[in-house]
């Protein structure tokens, strides 16, 4: 068994902004160099052994973009079996809907952050309509059910 062949257990935060005629989702941008396609994904991360998904969600948002969350509500579990960068992956994702405590996050256009492995990512708000029309690729696609 190669190290990649493990189911990863994750938690994502579904953060929507519906103020002032907005209908935006907070995501980060990634790129699959094999499919040569940009994708968007909700922020969050891996649940650690012995940690519940609720605690992991709050910890990940703290670590990645130093953000506190509020109104955290569980919405569902997604099983995602996929190919990324030519490698097969398998994730179980606990999804929570939530809001940022600090209003400054709703004013940002773009935010750069670093993962533990020092990879640089950009987080941003994208229009839900552009996801639904298929113009922007949100992964996993099951996530669209919650929009």
């Amino acid at each position, binding site marked *: *068994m190669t190290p990649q*062949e*493990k*189911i990863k*257990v994750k938690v994502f935060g579904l953060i929507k902004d519906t103020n002032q005629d907005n209908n935006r989702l907070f995501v980060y941008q990634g790129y699959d160099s094999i499919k040569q396609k940009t994708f968007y994904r909700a922020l969050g991360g891996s*649940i650690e*052994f*012995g*940690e*519940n*998904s609720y605690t992991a969600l709050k910890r990940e948002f703290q670590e990645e973009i130093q953000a506190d969350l509020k109104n955290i509500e569980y919405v*569902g*579990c997604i*099983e995602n*079996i996929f190919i990324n960068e030519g490698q*097969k992956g*398998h994730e*179980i994702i*606990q999804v929570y809907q939530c809001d940022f405590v600090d209003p400054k996050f709703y004013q940002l256009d773009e935010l750069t952050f670093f993962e533990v492995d020092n990879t640089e990512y950009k987080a941003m708000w994208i229009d839900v309509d552009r996801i639904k029309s298929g113009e922007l690729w949100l992964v996993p696609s099951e996530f669209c059910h919650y929009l």
Partner: protein
Amino acid sequence: MHNPTQIRVLALGLIRNGSSTFISEGYDPVKQQTFYRAMGGGVEFGETSFEALKREFQEEIQAELKNIRYLACLENIFTFNGKSGHEIIQLYECEFADPKFYQLEKFTFSEGDRKKTALWVEASRLKSGELRLVPEQFAEFL
């Protein structure tokens, strides 16, 4: 083999028959306590929990399932046999395709090299705490 400090993903099946529930019996030697849990098992890499549920019932008691319906996801952080464990359980409600499983009172089956017992138990005995059900959150689905 399963890494003891890794979160395990399980698919379990809740099967009812009137007021009874089909459940397997286990024993924690450290707590010196018998416990009961729904049958099923580990989800393999690349396999959906739905497929895993059907495979596990096939492997363990050669039973086919029907009317399989997803119920919920349970997070279970616990201690068993003195060691901590962490599971994510995809819980399904289902029925046996073969009516013979509703007539048998008790089954013995093998899980690896262990002999295990599965049986029909009155749900009220699990809900009242007379019989120890794991994980406890499971009780709300009985």
